[in-house]
């Protein structure tokens, strides 16, 4: 009885607070929140989302109030953090990891007036948008550069988990490298982690020892870049410009540029024009960008890279353009054909022909 009375009086108190706050809403800043899977200091995935959040703040100034929460476990904790943020009056919440998909779904049902933006997922509601980037376009460009720059004809690829996004990246890189260098060979090492600098360094070293002179990574730390730098090899930054960790090694980096998208979405909330959409942007829209090309690239390689970036930006180039066979030799795409987003690209679970490796189970 006592407790019930207490919670009721708290409820009354809370309601009056909310009323008080909302009565002065007109000049209030729009409240936006970001939930991160890692620490913002990872210098990869989370870092880049945080750069996006800061971009919004920079452009909207006092019109926006941003809250970020880092290192949120995927699971029940994530749902609670979302609810807390919603209760604190945030009008739009960005949940920036695939594992937040089901927690986002639950939180969105609970708070129908709050807009949610879930990165890399596929479940949408009236108040959940999903967004991701065509990272494989970036992989295409670095694949071509790698194919030209390698002397040993061996590329080392550090992969995290065998999910479609990672497999798309491997296939895109391999096809691009092969198109300029028929002798190319790709060595793929799965580390089963997004973020374990020690293991990523070990993996980079193992591949360098096996003759790879170019390292690609689909993991988030800067360890592989530093190993490449130290051994005088080349590498490509992942998610952010890792040039300061490998001033000689980094040929370029695929940059996840979320800022403009975030700005557009927060402004849509402010203007009342937000609606649930599915975004899968690439080089053309600017969501996939590149760090400055290294001075070490010869003029012809540089020109080739720039031309490809230009064609991607113009929308005239698709990294997966037939004829392409699957690894087992069966036909996937006929000449000139490009794959549909669903199911081919979004559920990709096969290597293309020529890759001498197996996807774990």
């Amino acid at each position: 009885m006592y407790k019930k009375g207490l919670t009721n009086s708290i409820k009354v108190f809370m309601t009056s607070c909310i009323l008080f706050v909302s009565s002065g809403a007109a000049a209030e800043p729009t409240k936006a929140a970001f939930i991160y899977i890692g620490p913002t200091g990872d210098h990869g995935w989370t870092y880049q989302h945080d750069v996006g959040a800061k971009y919004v703040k920079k452009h909207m100034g006092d019109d926006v109030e941003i809250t970020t929460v880092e290192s949120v476990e995927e699971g029940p904790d994530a749902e609670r953090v979302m609810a807390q943020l919603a209760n604190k009056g945030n009008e739009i919440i960005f949940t920036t990891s695939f594992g937040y998909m089901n927690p986002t779904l639950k939180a969105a049902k609970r708070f129908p007036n709050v807009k949610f933006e879930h990165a890399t997922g596929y479940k949408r509601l009236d108040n959940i948008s999903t967004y991701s980037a065509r990272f494989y376009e970036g992989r295409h460009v670095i694949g071509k550069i790698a194919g030209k720059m390698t002397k040993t004809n061996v590329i080392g690829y550090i992969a995290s988990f065998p999910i479609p996004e990672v497999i798309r990246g491997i296939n895109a890189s391999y096809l691009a490298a092969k198109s300029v260098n028929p002798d190319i060979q790709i060595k793929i090492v799965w580390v089963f982690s997004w973020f374990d600098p020690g293991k990523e360094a070990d993996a980079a070293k193992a591949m360098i020892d096996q003759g790879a002179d170019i390292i690609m990574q689909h993991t988030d730390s800067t360890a592989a870049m530093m190993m490449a730098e130290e051994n005088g090899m080349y590498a490509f930054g992942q998610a952010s410009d890792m040039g300061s960790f490998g001033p000689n090694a980094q040929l370029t980096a695929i940059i996840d540029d979320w800022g403009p998208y975030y700005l557009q979405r927060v402004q849509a909330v402010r203007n009342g024009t937000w609606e649930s959409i599915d975004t899968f942007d690439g080089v053309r829209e600017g969501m996939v960008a590149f760090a400055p090309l290294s001075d070490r690239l010869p003029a012809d390689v540089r020109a080739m890279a720039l031309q490809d970036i230009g064609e991607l930006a113009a929308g005239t180039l698709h990294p997966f353009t037939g004829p392409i066979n699957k690894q087992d030799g069966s036909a996937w795409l006929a000449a000139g054909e490009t794959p549909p987003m669903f199911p081919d690209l979004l559920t990709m679970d096969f290597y293309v022909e020529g890759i001498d490796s197996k996807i774990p189970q």
Partner: protein
Amino acid sequence: MVFLSPILALTLTALSTFFIFFLAGVDGFGAFYVLFIEPLSTQYNFSEMLVKAAPLMMIALGLSVGFRAGVWNIGAEGQYTVGAIVGGAVGLYFYEVEGFWVLPLMSLAAIVGGMLYAGIAAFLRTKFQVNEILVTLMLTYVAILLLSAMVHGPLRDPDGFNFPESRLFHDSATLPIIWEGTRVHIGLALAVIFSFLTYFWIKKHISGMQINISGIAPRAAKFAGFDENKAVWLSLLVSGGLAGLAGLLEAAGPVGQLVPHLPTGYGFTAIIVAFLARLNPLGIIFSSLLIALTYIGGENAQITYDLPSSITSIFQGMLLFYFLACDVLIRHKIIFNFSKNINHE
């Protein structure tokens, strides 16, 4: 006397936290409010504290039984994970099959799974005298890797675009909510009921007392004809079963599916919970709530003051340090006088 050291420990931890906030340039009083008061101030926060406390309570209960018997199962995290895998697999096997029996069957499977997993340590200890601390710890890592292998392989959602996670459990395989509008599920009720059952078992039933005595005075227990092996088996099976059940409750409750990141350290945190309660089953109800509060408070501190998430683990670590120290200091006097008396005899 019972509450003296917990209160003292809390006070000291709070003071130290204040100091850390001061170093970090954060308004101490405000942060204090956010950490300790706010989690209790709204119905939602309060309910979330209960959600978080439920698995901790359940695991700590089982551990306290073993710790009383001097059996150090520190691998509850592994039993929790195996319970979730086995119970979850049953739920996925009966996917879309509706029936009141699905959830009980999953729970049973989880309990048996946790028991068998802890049973490995019991078997090795009773048969070969192998230290259970080391065995249970090693098996924890094996279990976590096993879960990862399962959700990447056999238990992966066939419609999930190859992402490493299982299907969402269907309705009959999902825990009922006992507090409408929140996430508080039946697991909390079970945990509280088990607390009382364990309390009476330890205090009143002969096998519970045996457990107690084998921990306090193993030689006396032997003379009295209590079988040490029986105490080892009993405490590992009980703690394993409860941890397994807790794992399933988390999977079929707030999470709703099997995911690779299901084990988030509850099995280890529960050890702290058990110690803060001085292994008293009823005390565990309170200590699990306290630790749950630190989690929620830590998140709030991050949202409001932009403090790093590491605050929570600093806080939990300090709380246990201070508590262990205070407890010993306060009790030391008693033991000391007591032993003096013995010497005089």
